[in-house]
Each structure stands twice: as C-alpha cells, then as structure tokens.
C-alpha cells in the first residue's frame, strides 16, 4: 500500500489486507492503483489523467536538433577523453588520501576503529567456520559434521514453519554436500547470517527513527538512495581500505548492500500505522515511547518481517561480489569457474546460491505466516506438534552426536556428481556457443554499428559543454525545475571528477540497453499478461535470472559475443530485463476485465487491444519499468567493464586491481553514482507529476519480486 494508492482511493481506502504483498510487488501495487478506479466504475474519484497540455517531446526534439547542429561543427573537440593512464588532479588527491589512510593504519583513530571492528568480525566468522565448515584442528573435521548441521537446520525449519519447509531445508542442505560444496555453502550461510543479524541491529532502529521523525528521514533517505544506486564494486574499494581483505570486508559490504531495504520497509511500516490508532493511544495518555512500543512497532511487525526477507535475499546476492575480496562462500567457486572459462564449474555453485535463496525466502515467509495459520486454527493440534518437535529434538541430538564421532556423518563423501554434471554442462554450453557464435557476432555487429556507435559518437564526441547543456535542457523540458536542479548538480559533479568522456560512453550504452530492455519487457510482459500459461512458463526463469550471480552467465555470453560493449549490454539485460518484464506483465494484467470486454466488443483486433487499450492503461507500470531498467542496467556497468565494455566500469575494475589507479577507480565509481541519480531524477520527473510511489524504487531495484 503506497501513499499514492491511498490517496487515489480517497477515504474509502480499500482494505486489501495485503500490505506486505503490495510492498513486495512494490510498484505493481501502485501501478494497479491507477487502473483500479476503472474497474470500480468510480472514475470521478480518479486522479486527473496526465494529458499534458503541450506534449513535451516537441521541445525535446528541438533541443536534440540544436544539439545535433552544434555537434556537426564541434564534434571531437573538448571531449575530455583521458589518454591511457592519464589522471586528473582529483584522482591524484584521492590516491593521496588512500595512501595516507594506509600509512596511518596503526595510528589513525578511524583506521584503528575499523581495524578493531574487522578483527571482531573475523574472529566471529572464524569461530563459526571451525564449528561447521572447516576442520577444527586437531580434529580433522569441523566440530559439527554435515549430518548434525543438516538435521538441526531441518528441525529448525519444522519448528519455525512447517514440515514442507523442513523438507525444503533438508533437500537444500543435502544438495550442498552431494554436489561437493559443503564447506563453501556453510561459509555462505555464516556470512549471510552475521550480515543479516547486523542489518537487523542497525536497520530496525534506523527504520523506526526514519518512520517517526521527518527530520531523521530527510537525512537517512538520501543516504539509502546513494547506497542503492552505487554499483557494489564501487564500495569494495573503500571497504578493503578500512576493513582489510577477507570475511570482515565481506560482512561490511553485505551489510551496506542489504540493510537499506530493511530500513526503508521498516520506516514504511511505522508510517503506515493509521493516525487514528495513535490518537487513541494519545487519548489514553500514552507517552511517545509507549505509543511506539505498544502500537506502532507491533502493528508494523508484519511489514518489518517482509523487510527482513528482502534483506536476506539482498545479502545472498552479494555472495559473489564479496568473493572478490576473499570473502568466504559459494561465490568463490563461481569466480574460479570464470577464471578457467568453465560454465559448468560456475553454474553449480551458482544454482546452489539460487537454492539457498529459495529456501531462505520460503522459510522466512512461512515463518512469518505461521502465527496466522495457527490463529485460524490451521496446522496440527498443539499436542501433536509438540510431540513431533520433541521427537525431532531427540533425533537431532543423536545426529549431532554421530556427526562428532563418525567420519561418514562428519564429512560428505564426494561421489563426483558435481564434477560430472559440471563437465556435461560445460560441454553442452561449449558446443552450443560454438554453433551460435557466427549468428551472435552478426547480432553484435548489427546493433553496435547501427545504434551503439552512432549514439556514442553523438553523446561522447560532443564537447563537454555541449553535452552538459543538452542534457540539462532535456532535463528541464522533460521534468521542469525539479529535474533541472539535480541534473545540473550531477553534471557539474561528473565534470569535476574528470571522467566525463567515459561517463558519456557509459550513458550511451545504458540508453541502448534500456531501450532493448523495454522492447523485451513489452513483448514478453504483454504475452505473459494475456496468457496465463506463458506467465507460468516464464516466471520461474525470471526468478532464476534475478537470483543467479551474473558471473555464471558471463562465461557463455563472453563466448558468444567476444569482449565488447554489446557483451556488457547482454549481461546487463539478463539482470535488468526480468524486473521490467514482471512490472509490465503485472501492469497490463491490472487492466480491468470489463475494459477489455468493451474493447473486444467494439471489434478491436488483438494488436489494437494491446496498442490502444492495454499499454496506455498500463502506462505507469511502463514508466516504472523503464526507470527500473535504467538503474538496473547502470548497476551492471562495472560487470560490463570486466567483459570488454570499457568506459566507467572498466575504470572501476582497474582502480580495484591496480594500486596506482585507485583514485581513478574511485572517481569513476562516484561518476556512476552521479549518472544514476541524474537518470533517475530526469526519468522520475518526466514520468509526470511525481508519483510518490517511485520513492520506493530502490527496494524494487534490488529485489524485483
């Protein structure tokens, strides 16, 4: 339930009773809100349709024309392209900052504090690792072997949820061992567990603060925006500086990435407690603290649990990135597969990450619903349930005991299944890519020469002042003053950081990728909305696309397209398209049945139905999908830089791997952030009278479903 939908429905706010779902689907709920009035035949209550008095594309076209004319005369001058290893003053300054921090490792109070924190995390992780994942010398195996851990986890699954979850947990844990990744899987769970715990300790209080105090929210919100727009690689640079390599950095990076959704959703939960409830409390003489404790937090509990779920998923998706700084976990074998160009090796741990995500998602969801199920009288009789729990506890203790004593219960015997499966996969993918690569390189060349190169020539070969003025003017005609101001600030920042030329190249790639993303989203999304069977077939693929680490499909994509910008675009599409597709599908589905009936009755063909009724009515979903697509694509800029796409992404990779280029990488990272804010602000304002719901975008951006 976003505030937007509340407003549009007026005082008769619908009691959907699915608040958590609405915020999980985020915009789908919001997109549906605009359509809902049609279904209810309450058009008089509807917000005014956004028919602009003067279409905004006309002045925009004029600006582009002017830009083009000036470009003809000036192209190639003042592009601020950096030659090779050139660095600007600000990059040197950043380098010096890094050096002084490093030198002050033992004296600088900030460095000493971060060092102490890092030691704490490292110690905790090492302790847990000896408990369940690595040999605890002098024992040749961990303190608790696989059998013990698996049975304990299964028992917990039953205790907090139900037997179905218990089976899911059992299956997941057994597959960790069966495919030969037991220890890496345990490491992953340890890192995710600690990170989520820290997220809760930090995030819930911050969320409550942001939910109760407008002033605190004004500070917290932009920080969260920043954290979520920044590609994760960018903050690995400073994190390694302050927390060293290894598990401590992995935890810190994961927390920074995973905490924002929890903070946002918790704040939203607190804010959406109806004011009447608070008034009741007030009239009873409650203090503010009492209100918070007795009314707001209990009522927001459900929403906060949804936030927790989002945070857990986000923490899992950091797994591979954290491995770049030697964070333990399943990301390591994924990266190893990338190193030897072996899809099979990367795919299996990748799928285990997906399986872990499914397990944790279903388990936390079921656990949060359990109270309701019991309240409604569902589930087993309490006595039977207790009996099973107790019996399970005895079995669990037996398993623990065995796994401490016996090798077979402590160490998974490797039957080589994982290896064989990896070989088969690798072989299949190899022959498939070899067969397809002539076609795919044709596609790559086609799109690169027809769209990417001309657009890049236009934007990046413009003198910087021309591109600056052009983008600012476009921001103004599309979004008015409220888009112009942030645009100018961002552009000025990008200019100052010295990565202007690369930023423009990245911008061109981002735009092309977004257009392709939206093309896919409309075609597939509409098909999904119109046919339930298509939806059923495609949705699991989309889910997997969102959870599987990008590095898994980097290998085949690289084999298909070679190192190029287009490869980067394809990788970005694989990541961005699922979200946009889902948003479009949900938006189109939201078009009311009666409207469609009327369209059909008036004899509209299928194409006409789509073009004239469904797409226009799903407009806000389309706008949102575009915005999301843009930001998702940009979030992949750094990964694109690893597969030959160059520009800003490459500079970040360079900075994280070469000490003398650190400052350059940091500057490029900040430029990506500015570019993201710039695009987001323009897209948001351009989409109309600032739908308030878009403030939710980052939650969605990270976890689209």
């Amino acid at each position, binding site marked *: 339930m976003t505030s937007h939908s509340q407003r549009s429905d007026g005082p008769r706010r619908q009691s959907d009773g699915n608040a958590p779902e609405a915020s999980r689907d985020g915009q789908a709920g919001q997109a549906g809100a605009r359509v809902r009035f049609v279904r209810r035949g309450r058009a008089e209550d509807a917000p005014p349709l956004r028919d602009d008095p003067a279409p905004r594309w006309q002045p925009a076209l004029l600006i582009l024309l002017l830009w083009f004319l000036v470009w003809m005369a000036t192209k190639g001058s003042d592009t601020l392209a950096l030659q090779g290893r050139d660095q600007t003053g600000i990059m040197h300054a950043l380098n010096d900052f890094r050096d002084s921090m490093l030198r002050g490792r033992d004296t600088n109070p900030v460095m000493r504090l971060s060092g102490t924190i890092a030691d704490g995390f490292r110690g905790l992780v090492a302790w847990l690792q000896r408990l369940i994942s690595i040999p605890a010398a002098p024992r040749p195996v961990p303190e608790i072997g696989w059998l013990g851990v698996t049975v304990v986890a299964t028992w917990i699954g039953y205790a907090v949820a139900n037997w179905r979850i218990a089976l899911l947990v059992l299956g997941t844990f057994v597959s960790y061992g069966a495919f030969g990744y037991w220890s890496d899987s345990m490491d992953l769970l340890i890192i995710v567990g600690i990170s989520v715990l820290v997220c809760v300790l930090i995030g819930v209080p911050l969320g409550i603060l942001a939910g109760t105090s407008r002033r605190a929210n004004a500070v917290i919100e932009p920080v969260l925006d920043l954290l979520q727009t920044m590609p994760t690689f960018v903050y690995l640079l400073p994190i390694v500086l302050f927390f060293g390599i290894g598990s401590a950095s992995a935890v810190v990076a994961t927390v920074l990435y995973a905490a924002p959704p929890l903070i946002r959703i918790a704040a939203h939960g607190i804010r959406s407690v109806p004011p009447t409830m608070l008034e009741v409390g007030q009239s009873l003489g409650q203090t503010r603290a009492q209100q918070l404790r007795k009314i707001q937090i209990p009522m927001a509990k459900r929403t906060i649990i949804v936030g927790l779920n989002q945070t857990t998923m986000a923490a899992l998706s950091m797994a591979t990135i954290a491995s770049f700084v030697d964070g333990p976990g399943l990301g390591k074998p994924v990266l190893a597969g990338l190193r030897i160009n072996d899809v099979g090796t990367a795919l299996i741990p990748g799928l285990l990450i997906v399986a872990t995500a499914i397990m944790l998602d279903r388990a936390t969801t079921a656990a949060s619903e359990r109270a309701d199920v019991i309240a409604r009288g569902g589930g087993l009789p309490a006595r039977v349930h207790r009996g099973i729990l107790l019996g399970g506890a005895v079995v669990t203790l037996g398993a623990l005991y065995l796994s401490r004593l016996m090798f077979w219960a402590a160490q998974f015997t490797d039957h080589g299944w994982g290896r064989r499966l990896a070989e088969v996969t690798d072989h299949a993918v190899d022959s498939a890519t070899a067969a397809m690569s002539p076609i795919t390189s044709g596609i*790559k060349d086609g799109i690169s020469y027809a769209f990417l190169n001309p657009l890049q020539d236009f934007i990046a070969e413009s003198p910087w002042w021309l591109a600056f003025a052009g983008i600012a003017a476009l921001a103004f005609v599309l979004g008015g003053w409220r888009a112009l101001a942030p645009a100018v600030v961002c552009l000025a920042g990008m200019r100052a950081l010295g990565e202007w030329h690369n930023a423009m190249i990245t911008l061109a790639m981002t735009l092309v990728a977004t257009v392709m993303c939206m093309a896919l989203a409309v075609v597939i999304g509409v098909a999904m909305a119109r046919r339930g069977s298509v939806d059923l077939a495609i949705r699991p693929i989309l889910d997997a696309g969102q959870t599987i680490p990008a590095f898994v499909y980097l290998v085949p994509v690289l084999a298909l397209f070679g190192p190029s910008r287009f490869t980067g675009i394809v990788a970005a599409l694989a990541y961005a398209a699922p979200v946009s597709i889902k948003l479009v599908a949900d938006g189109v589905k939201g078009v009311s049945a009666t409207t469609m009936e009327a369209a059909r009755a008036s004899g509209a063909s299928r194409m006409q139905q789509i073009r004239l009724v469904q797409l226009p009515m799903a407009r806000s979903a389309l706008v949102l999908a575009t915005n999301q697509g843009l930001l998702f694509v940009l979030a992949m800029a750094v990964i694109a830089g690893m597969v030959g796409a160059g520009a800003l992404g*490459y500079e970040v990779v360079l900075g994280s*791997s070469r000490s003398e280029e650190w400052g350059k990488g940091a500057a490029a990272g900040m430029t990506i952030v500015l570019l993201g804010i710039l695009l987001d602000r323009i897209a948001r304002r351009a989409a109309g009278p600032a739908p308030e719901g878009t403030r939710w975008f980052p939650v969605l951006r990270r976890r689209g479903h």
Partner: protein
Amino acid sequence: MKVTTTRPLGALAAVAAVALVATACGGGDIKKAEASNSAASSSAAGKKCATINMAVNPWVSYEASAYVVGEVAKTKLGCQVNYKELKEDVSWQGFGTGEVDVVIEDWGHPDLEKKFMKDKGGDGSAIAGGPNGNKGIIHWYVPPWLATEHPDILDYQNLNKYADQFKTSESGGKGQFLGSDPSYVQFDEAIISNLKLNFKVVFSGGEAASLEAFKKAEANKEWLIGYFWEPQYLFADVPLKAVKLPPFTAGCQDDPAKVACDYPDTILQKVFSSKWAGQADDAGVALMKKFQWDNEDQNVVAKYIAVDKMKPEDAAKKWIDANPDKVNAWLS
C-alpha cells in the same frame, strides 16, 4: 504460552546434557584421528610450522605454483595453509595486516614495492623472497595462421598497414588490440600511442577471455593481435607468434606514459610478509624460501587445472607424487 515453550526446552536441555556427556567419553573414528593428529603435531620432527596465508592471484599458472608449494607444506610439513583468491594489489596490502604471507609469483610492481618494501622507501611490510624459477615472457602476439600468411606482421613497423583488418565494432575505426585483465602489468596504450600505431586497446577482462579469443582466432582464422604471456599452457596447443617491438632497454618502462619498448623477460619473484618470513626455525618459511621450479613444470600443473579441470589441490598432488626428487630438494 509460557508453559508450552518451556517444556520442550527443558526436555531438550536434559537430552543435550546426556548427549554431551556421552560424546565426551565415547569412542569413534574421528576421536582416533584427532588423537593421532595431536600426537603428530607434538612430535613433528623438531621444526614447527606456522600458518601460511597464500595469496592466489587470478591466473592459472600462479594457481599452479601456489597450490603445489602449498600442498607440499600441508602434507609434508603439516602446516596450515590458507589460500586466498586475491588480485595483486590487494595481496600486497594484506602483508601489513597479516592476512597474506606469501605471493608466490610476482611479475614486478615498482609502485607496490615503493609502498611496502623498506629498501624501496616503503613501510617494510613486504620483503623480497627471491626468484621462483619461472621466467615471465610478455609480448604482443598474433595467432599462428596470421604469422604464416603475413610474415611481415611480426614487425611492429608493418602493423599500421594491417590496422584495418583488425577493426571491430569496439575499436572506433582503428585496429583492435586485445588487452587482458587490467590488474596485469600492461603498457600497451602507451606503446601504441608512442609508436604512433593506429590501434585501440580493448580489454578482454581476464586470462580466460584472452585465451578464448586467441583460440577462436586460430580456429576461425580471425585477425587478432593482443597482449599475452608465457608461461601459459595455451602455447602447447596454439603456439602464438610474438610481434617484434623496439627492444627493451633498462629504464625504458620507468615512466608508464612514455613507454615505447617491448616488455622485458621477467624473472618472476616471490614476495613475503616480513613479519611472517622473520620467524626463525619455521619449516614453512624455509620451504617457501627454497621453492623453485621451471616453466615446463608449471605448465604441466596449469594444464591439469585448466584443461583437465582438476581441482587445484588434486592437480598439485598429482605433480607432487610424480616428482618426488624435486619436492625433496625443496624440503632438504
């Protein structure tokens, strides 16, 4: 509610207590292994061995060296070896914090040496560990078919003649020069601009991508020129041909922006954390100091890992078992 939650908990605690007692005095095969482990470590031939944190930089031949010497330390000396997959720069930063003890194959990083080695003016957290026996050869290479059909391409002065052939969608009208992982020692952009070559560097992103590109270029007779290096197991299958650049002279690479010469052959070095290497009487330190092998040995193990897809530990073990003489020389 209270009662329902505490009752199973109480029972649980009771069972737990019983189980713990049973574990403490029970037998079982792990107990025996544990006992023999602690006996072994207390009687280990006089010399102790501290933990070794081994950086594993992202190319396969490095991995081969790291795991071979690491597995020797593990199995023959009983050291605890932690492998850490890190890029070069981050590895060096780890010397000071105790997170990294050994870099087994360093291709030369003057910038890092200045920062971390005492004799170069750094903080002294790193110390040179001597050559590891491998010789690093970096050049610009073309696939063999190209060298056969256009032999004159092997001289840089003729490259501009062919620049058009190397054009791709990425190279902006110039010829494409394939760079590799940005973390490697590369001066190609400077060399190209200083030699006035009509080429543009496009980075493949890593070893695997470069390797794949050269394999594909040879198989499909595509035009390709790029940065590559030996020791590399690819040369056994696809003997890439080097393009001659102005020869390396001492100091010609000192200013990265002004480089206009070929890469020197590098005697690859070991680098240690000074604190770790300073431990007297440590068997692990002695082993790392002694470790040396040649390019051929390394290629064998690298091939086990990358082509036969063996786990690095298993690949190392296979080589160790087949070469007891060489291994014993490191241990004596």
